[in-house]
């Protein structure tokens, strides 16, 4: 069932631009794919029990690093994306090192703090290089001079997104994924079973930061400009929201959550709501946390259970004694 679902989703994604040649939709889909990568990256880290509230840091570092390398060296963004992501992964390991001994709240705060610190560095000490608050222009993925460039861009983003998901799927299936779950559930026991928590925590940070960096670089090369706003709280919270909505710890969760919320978000925007959108998303999020803690992906299960329990409340007639 999941196989068919996946094929269906991918098929839709491939065919969509031809069904509707709408440029606005194409842009929306591109951004959605990028955020699917970002949300999945955050989810990967959360699988190891580390819920970061500052993931915008890696998103932004990937973006800035890729932009700077591309502008300084003239290498195509398609290559610098993966180099910039490596920079993000490196910083991720450094940040991970400070968080190695921390529990959930502390880790959340420290990661939040790092996003702010990196933003502050970008606008103060690093300003000569990064353009400070004004930001810098970023080379586009495909030059607008080429006809149909939006389409090419969209498909390349789609390919990268699919590749990322496959990579995450593979990681989750592998022993590394098992190790992540082990240290998430009970670090002490995992350790005594021979799994080194430090090593896997750092690995999780490196992988998650790398993918987040890819997403960030993709977004910025797509948009064409980067500013320090990319390190903002907003960008740190969105992946968290998407994943909770969709289902924490699963492969499909971030994807489902991102798609669902993007549709809701854009729909509300069309209805003309600005602030109210956030309020509605907030309410939905809280409802999901309280009533559907495993996220939207759990909905079919829950409905099934609810249906079954309904049937059981029929009173069983007592046998009449002869």
């Amino acid at each position, binding site marked *: 069932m999941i196989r068919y679902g996946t094929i269906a989703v991918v098929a839709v994604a491939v065919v969509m631009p031809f069904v509707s040649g709408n440029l606005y939709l194409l842009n929306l889909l591109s951004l959605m794919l990028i955020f699917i990568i970002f949300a999945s990256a955050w989810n990967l880290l959360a699988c190891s029990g580390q819920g970061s509230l500052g993931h915008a840091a890696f998103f932004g570092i990937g973006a800035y690093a890729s932009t700077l390398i591309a502008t300084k060296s003239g290498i195509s963004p398609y290559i610098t994306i993966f180099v910039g992501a490596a920079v993000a992964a490196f910083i991720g390991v450094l940040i991970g090192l400070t968080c190695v001994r921390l529990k959930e709240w502390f880790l*959340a*705060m*420290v990661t939040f*703090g790092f996003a702010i610190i990196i933003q502050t560095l970008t606008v103060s000490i690093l300003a000569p290089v990064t353009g400070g608050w004004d930001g810098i222009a970023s080379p586009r993925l495909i030059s607008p001079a080429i006809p149909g460039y939006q389409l090419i861009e969209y498909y390349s983003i789609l390919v990268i997104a699919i590749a990322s998901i496959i990579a995450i799927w593979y990681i989750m299936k592998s022993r590394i994924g098992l190790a992540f779950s082990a240290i998430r559930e009970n670090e002490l026991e995992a350790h005594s079973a021979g799994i080194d928590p430090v090593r896997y925590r750092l690995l999780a940070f490196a992988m998650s930061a790398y993918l987040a960096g890819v997403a960030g670089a993709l977004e910025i090369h797509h948009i064409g400009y980067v500013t320090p706003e990319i390190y903002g709280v907003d960008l740190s*919270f969105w992946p968290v*929201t998407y994943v909770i909505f969709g289902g924490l710890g699963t492969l499909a969760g971030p994807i489902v959550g991102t798609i669902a919320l993007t549709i809701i978000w854009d729909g509300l925007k069309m209805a003309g709501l600005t602030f109210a959108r956030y*309020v509605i998303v907030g309410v939905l999020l809280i409802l999901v946390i309280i009533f559907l803690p495993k996220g939207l992906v759990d909905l079919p299960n829950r409905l099934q259970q609810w249906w079954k329990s309904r049937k059981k409340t029929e009173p069983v007639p007592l046998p009449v004694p002869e």
Partner: protein
Amino acid sequence: MVDIGILLQILFWGIYAGCIYILLATGLNLIFGVMKIVNFAHGEFLMIGAYITATVFFLTGINPYLIILISMLALVAIGAVVERLCFRPILGTGKLNEIFLSIGLIYIFQNATAMIWGDEWQSIKSPYEGITIPIGSLNVPLDYIIIMVVTAVILCALYLFLKKTKTGREMRATSQNRKGAKLVGINVERMDVLSFGIGCALAAAAGTLWVVSGQVFNPYMGSIPAIKAFAIIILGGLGSIPGAIVGGLIYGIAENGAAYYLGGVWKDAISFVILIVVLVLKPTGLFGESGE
């Protein structure tokens, strides 16, 4: 070399800024002590307190310092509702859930406020603005003094409540040993609601003082002070009220010192630098309290 005058000025800035953090941090400590949860949306209560204060002030012109009572009461009510509807259902379902719930609350509060009041920066003026009292070589604004006094009064009231009243003792019992408290007949759910309400009231007081001191506010200004309050209670030890007081003062001074010497842009970042340094050295906080 270093001008004593400047240092004293930073000290006074720091202490009065610290007062706001202390109130915020004490509220957090109270909630954490009794319910063992951490509410990242705590700063939003400060923000709501600020807006209530400003609005009542615009409408009636009452001395903002007196409005503190209104904002505190309003927030006890709001806090109680939030606890009942949002936190109680997820109590015990894991710490990540609390963090995520708080994110939802942040979205709601910040943007509901923006819907009602708009999202531009606003500020009000204290009736005592411009009046200063000479202390030594400094001219200390009267507002600073009043803020410090108000903070001290509130903290003393809280202390008396916790130590001398029956409810206060019940609250302390619940925070020390929840099961034991249930066994001796204390209604722990009531303690939860009460502690959350009082914690929010303290945040509201902090919000009023923020506004009164002429600082600008908008719907999004709550998050940063909240995170700093967290940093303070981590530094001072989760659940330790004296730790929060000392931590709050240190933070206020460090922040203003950093702003002066490194530039305003570092004002927020410095708090995190301190926090990260402390946590790396001592993962359970400076005066590391119970297990977490």
